[in-house]
């Protein structure tokens, strides 16, 4: 494997994990979370800052990131628990903008818009992970652990509860399910996935700044979630992530001016997303009727 393909595979795995967390929240439970990238940023910044203080220890940053991710997700779920749809989107959007402003302005902690560079590699007890192939291997293991964990939860409780909450949460609370607690649990689960992924992202790329976690970069994730449909399996998500990540690589071959690649890519993503949403309406109705 060349370095280029290894790098692409790592990015695809990272994005597929991110999309998995997002799909759990939106495609299964019907909660829209525009602060998703803030949770991603929380993991990345958490790792970057804590690993400076404890460079030789990996468990301690991991634990701290997990605790702060749970805390942040719990606050989000508390803020949004009385609301549905649009208001949830609005509150999470506000939260995302607040986190963005904090990242840009708390210069003494986050180094402001300049970001943090030279982030330490992951140090697993006796083995320091440095090369891209090591990272790829580690990410595959992390993905497998997460999938195993999610599978355990599915076998224990069943995804159908989430789908039922998506269809009609009032009915579910009438039937005796604690809808708010289940929603909080899903928030925490997806926040954890985002934060842990963010940690690996920061340690692999070695440089993060507030613009890496801009609200607008949610577009590829939204697109993957829309493409993957109603009840996606991980393989579905992985397939569509590969499509979405490889697409910009094709654009780069056309030798367009450098400044136009980013916006052009976003424009194509958004147009595809809108077309899918416009054409998917029949599909959504069919699901609700079932």
């Amino acid at each position, binding site marked *: 494997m060349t370095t280029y393909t290894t790098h692409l595979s790592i990015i695809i795995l990272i994005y597929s994990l991110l999309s998995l967390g997002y799909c759990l929240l939106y495609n299964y439970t*019907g909660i*829209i979370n*525009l602060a998703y990238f803030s949770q991603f940023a929380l993991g990345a910044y958490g790792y970057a800052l804590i690993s400076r203080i404890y460079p030789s220890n990996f468990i301690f940053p991991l634990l701290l990131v997990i605790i702060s991710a749970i805390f942040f997700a719990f606050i989000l779920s508390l*803020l949004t628990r*009385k*609301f549905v*749809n*649009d*208001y*949830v*989107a*609005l*509150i999470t*959007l*506000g*939260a995302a*903008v*607040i986190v963005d*402003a*904090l990242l*840009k*302005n708390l210069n003494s902690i986050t180094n402001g818009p300049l970001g943090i560079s030279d982030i330490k590699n992951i140090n697993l007890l006796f083995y320091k992970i440095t090369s891209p192939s090591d990272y790829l291997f580690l990410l595959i293991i992390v993905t497998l652990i997460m999938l195993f964990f999610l599978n355990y939860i599915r076998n224990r409780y069943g995804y159908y509860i989430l789908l039922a909450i998506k269809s009609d949460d009032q009915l579910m609370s009438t039937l005796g399910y604690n809808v708010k607690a289940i929603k909080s649990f899903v928030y925490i689960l997806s926040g954890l996935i985002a934060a842990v992924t963010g940690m690996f992202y920061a340690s692999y790329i070695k440089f993060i700044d507030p613009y890496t976690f801009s*609200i*607008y970069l949610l*577009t590829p994730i*939204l697109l993957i979630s829309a493409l993957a449909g109603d009840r996606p399996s991980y393989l579905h998500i992985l397939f569509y992530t590969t499509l979405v990540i490889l697409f910009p690589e094709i654009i780069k071959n056309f030798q367009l001016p450098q*400044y*136009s690649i*980013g*916006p*052009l890519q*976003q*424009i194509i993503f*958004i*147009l595809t*997303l*809108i077309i899918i*949403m*416009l054409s998917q*309406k*029949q599909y*959504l*109705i069919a699901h*609700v009727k079932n």
Partner: protein
Amino acid sequence: MTYIQIIINSLIIGGIYALFAIGFSFTFRILNFFNFFYGALFLVTPYIIFELIVYLHLSFIYSCLISISITTLVNLIVSKNIFSPLSRNSQHSSLLLIVSFMLLFLSQNMIILFVGADVKNLKKYVHQITFTFHDLTITAQQMLIILLSLSLMVFFYFLINRTLFGLKIKAVSYNFEISELRGINSQGIIMISCIISSLLASLAGILISIEQNIEPGMGLPMMLKGIAAALLGGEMIYASVIGAYAIGLLENLSIWFFPSGFKSLVLFCLLIVIIIVKQRIFLQLKLKKNKK
């Protein structure tokens, strides 16, 4: 003197926010979701004016008129072809919000692609006349902004509360089908409301372009401020106007007390607090949907 200057600045920026908020509450009444595309209209108008002035060498007034008509047309097309089919068929109103949010982002990216990501200045194309009283300075444009926003507010207050048209808008926003049954041309009312709202968005865009520099990222913060003001007001137009002025004042005061970067932080904390405190509006909306 500084305090008076802060109040004058708040009146200027609050007036623009108020215009924006009135237009937003129009679309919110009719479409019943947070239409982020409204922010795109606000964002695109100054850029069209800029392009018309720079490349076609038109005068400022003509380019304003052309850009307003273009954005109005685009708004009509988008609401007819994207929002109304989605709102008729979709069970999730968050789908509409995502689509409109993506449209705002689309316009932002198009501006970056075709015009450039850097800050543009439209102020230089407008003749500046400055009045100075002791330490206070105010330009003729700023006076125009204050007067225009105040007079338009009064106009819309009467339009909504004292005319048959306002009553029809209320009826259509309350229940689309029943107002059709009672002989109101609902589609026509929706179309006129779309035109009015896009006029107000474009006007706010023009006024902000002669007051500040324009940049591609200014759509979303403005949109959130407009939403905060509209939610603060709820069903009443004049309350959202007061909300918009309060936001303008808060913004100017927060620059006074905090570093300028924290301006947005204060505002969006306020937005979240407003949404959580003002659940009344949310409940009203829910009742409305249940009645349908």
